[in-house]
């Protein structure tokens, strides 16, 4: 029976994708859940797997083609018997040793392979009698999935090492993700009246809190470490409650006030900046925020953030400080109206009550859309964040 291999249903925010890489060709035998093709969208690379086992009879798109939501990409002629190399694992027993093609597999190895979508037939077993151990699965490195972007980055880096005296130019097409980022930022600059207001915050209280309670926090919250982001998100949420305009967005000629705070936290990855969103951050405890950020960072690095995780957001926090930035003007994340930029903490002499003291200071930047938010509100909002960070008791007491 002929089965169609289709592109997945894209979420609303994604119009189209590009066919990035074919992993199989016409005539190939595939098993159910084998990786067939990669589709690159603005934000993520989507993997399309075989819905059934069989032979690929037709391939309808080539690499580089535009692919729409649910578009048919190829066809499979299903095979009735399971002739494939990898028989479905452990049909009878659930957690005991599965036999994959005659090779025994330790239970934790099978579990990990299932979780990571690793084909055990490709894993070399080093255990007794050729058994596949968890170690074998951990150390298994699949053949690299080359997306256009990754390949380019590598090539670009290599190209720089040109002998002096040669004036060489290399023309490389932008990855889809890069073009999209480029478009959005141009549109933001052109369609918003973006300005930035600055302030500085004395981090000593927050650092003191962290030092004092780190051990207890980590113990009670199962190993989650107390960072600054958790407390900044808390301060931001509190400030957004007091200045709902900062949490709003413009839609045509309407102002949409969002009754929730979805805080985006900017994470830098190899492919570019992504902003996963903490939904309903107003309901999250500091530990929950820290955990979520940590998870997102991991997923972002592994390229495993889903589109849903990156959609929406009513306010964004970005931290250039980790790279050493002392001061910057963050760009808005449309359609949001404001973005908070954190920077590097620097020990600086400051004047407090007529005395010069050295304090750990961080500059804060708030870029805002002046079409919606006036200078006064932007400044007061940022001052509110400053005061809440400098004296966290104010968050607790809602003052």
């Amino acid at each position: 029976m002929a089965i169609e291999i289709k592109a997945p249903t894209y979420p609303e925010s994604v119009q189209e994708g590009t066919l990035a890489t074919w992993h199989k060709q016409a005539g190939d035998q595939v098993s159910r859940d084998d990786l067939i093709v990669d589709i690159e969208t603005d934000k993520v690379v989507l993997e399309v797997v075989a819905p059934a086992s069989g032979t690929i009879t037709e391939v309808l798109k080539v690499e580089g083609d535009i692919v729409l939501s649910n578009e048919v990409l190829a066809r499979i002629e299903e095979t009735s018997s399971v002739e494939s190399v990898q028989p479905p694992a452990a049909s009878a027993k659930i957690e005991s040793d599965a036999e994959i093609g005659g090779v025994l597999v330790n239970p934790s190895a099978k579990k990990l392979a299932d979780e990571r979508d690793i084909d055990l037939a490709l894993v070399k077993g080093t255990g007794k009698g050729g058994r596949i151990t968890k170690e074998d699965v951990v150390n298994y490195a699949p053949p690299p999935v080359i997306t256009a972007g990754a390949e380019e980055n590598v090539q670009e880096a290599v190209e720089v090492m040109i002998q002096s005296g040669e004036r060489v130019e290399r023309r490389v097409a932008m990855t889809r993700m890069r073009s999209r980022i480029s478009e959005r930022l141009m549109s933001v600059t052109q369609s918003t009246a973006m300005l930035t207001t600055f302030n500085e915050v004395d981090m000593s209280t927050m650092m003191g809190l962290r030092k004092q309670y780190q051990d207890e926090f980590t113990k009670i919250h199962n190993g989650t470490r107390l960072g600054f982001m958790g407390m900044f998100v808390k301060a931001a949420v509190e400030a957004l409650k007091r200045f709902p305009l900062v949490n709003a967005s413009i839609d045509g000629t309407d102002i949409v006030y969002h009754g929730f705070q979805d805080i985006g936290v900017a994470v830098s990855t190899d492919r570019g900046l992504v902003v996963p969103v903490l939904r309903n951050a107003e309901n999250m405890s500091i530990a929950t925020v820290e955990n979520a950020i940590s998870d997102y960072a991991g997923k972002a690095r592994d390229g495993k953030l889903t589109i849903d995780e990156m959609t929406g957001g009513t306010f964004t926090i970005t931290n250039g400080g980790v790279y050493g930035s002392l001061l910057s003007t963050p760009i808005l994340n449309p359609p949001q109206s404001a973005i908070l930029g954190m920077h590097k903490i620097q020990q600086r002499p400051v004047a407090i009550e007529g005395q010069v003291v050295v304090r750990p200071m961080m500059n804060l930047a708030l870029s805002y859309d002046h079409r919606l938010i006036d200078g006064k509100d932007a400044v007061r909002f940022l001052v509110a964040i400053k005061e809440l960070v400098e004296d966290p008791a104010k968050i607790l007491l809602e003052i």
Partner: protein
Amino acid sequence: MSNHFDVVVIGSGPAGYVAAIRAAQLGLKTACIEKWKNTDGKGVNGGTCLNVGCIPSKALLDSSQKFHETAKDLSVHGISVDSVDIDISAMLERKNKIINQLTGGIAGLFKANGVTALYGTGKLLSGKKVELTDNEGSVSLIDAQNVILASGSLPISIPVAPVDNDLILDSTGALELEEVPKRLGIIGAGVIGLELGSVWARLGSEVILLEALDDFLAIMDKAIAKESKKIFSKQGLDIRLGARVTGTKINGREVEVTYKTSGGEELSQTFDKLIVCVGRRPYTDGLLAPGCGVDVDERGSVFVNEFCATNVPGVYAVGDLVRGPMLAHKGSEEGVMVAERIAGHKAQMNYDIVPNVIYTHPEVASVGLTEEQVKAGGEPYNVGVFPFSASGRAMAANDTDGLVKIIANADTDRILGCHIVGPSAADLTQQVAIAMEFGSSAEDLGMTVFGHPTLSEAVHEAALAVNGSAIHIANRKRRS
């Protein structure tokens, strides 16, 4: 007697007799020479292990433990005991009976497998010839296709405390004491010292152990060594570290021992009996004729490769005679490996997974790498610990001292080592040793169903604790 054999084994301790039986099973014409004579002058098999080592010490450990439990540990159960006595000679009699049963058993196994049992001293000459001097003194020459040297080891003697087996004893003498010494001194707080000390302390001796090293049980995992020392000290064993014995003096029926502490102090202590157990050395006296071609290293061990082959083709050496831990089971498995290799099998031995046990109560056992060894090796690791105080089964048995510690590689989760002090530590460690043989990860043990309530569950929980998912104890780190 035929003078030609496929395999001649010199020594019938756990390494030798096992090698002989296995060789015979594989169809090789085998002879096994033994020089040990029992107190009746009769040649007996079994070597140190059966006659004056593993078996008799375990028999005395169990007898003394029963005495101690009956005298001290039954009231918590609501059992009252007026007075408890022990008849030392009956205790020794039981031990001797067990020895006889087992040594006789080996003779029986030899017969059943067709191994020619020879009694006398064997000496390796050149050209794979073995010279046998029997117990009557007659000498004969045996031609061997293959020779397996398995003459074992002897207690190391130190000049400052010469053994007379009257007041100053070695481990053999310590198993024959006819009455409980009031004050017992032990030089060397290693495995043997701790076991012998335990036996007599339980029966009422005031025991002081003098250990020259600054660290207690230096080769064991430090956390386990520390916990063990706490437990043994609580039991009344006075363990003095950094105490190097400088001399002994016999005064009538007492022994005065002088020793130097690591701080430089000179101290002395008087005992009614003194046991010297500072280690054992390979026994090559009279074994190798000059020119036989076999090399002996600087420690006196016969030099062998990883298959226990000496540099003379066809001559092998196993057990305490060669490198590696002086453990009966290590010797036995080497014996099996050699017999199989002689028969043409590609046998080999996994030296990384050899359990070792101290049969005190609670037992101390370990297999694999210690945390210190893992750290020195540089690989990232996780540790899971579960104390027996949290085990329902241990509580019911009123035996809650100790803990299970499992170490696994942090990236691959492969189990690297297991160290236990506690009830049935030897048997519990064996479970982990089996898992390690199959390349198991800590998670594999965690995914195995363990019966409840068992002591084994402590192993299960420690394995779960490695990755922060122990149920019956608060985890130290975040679950992954």
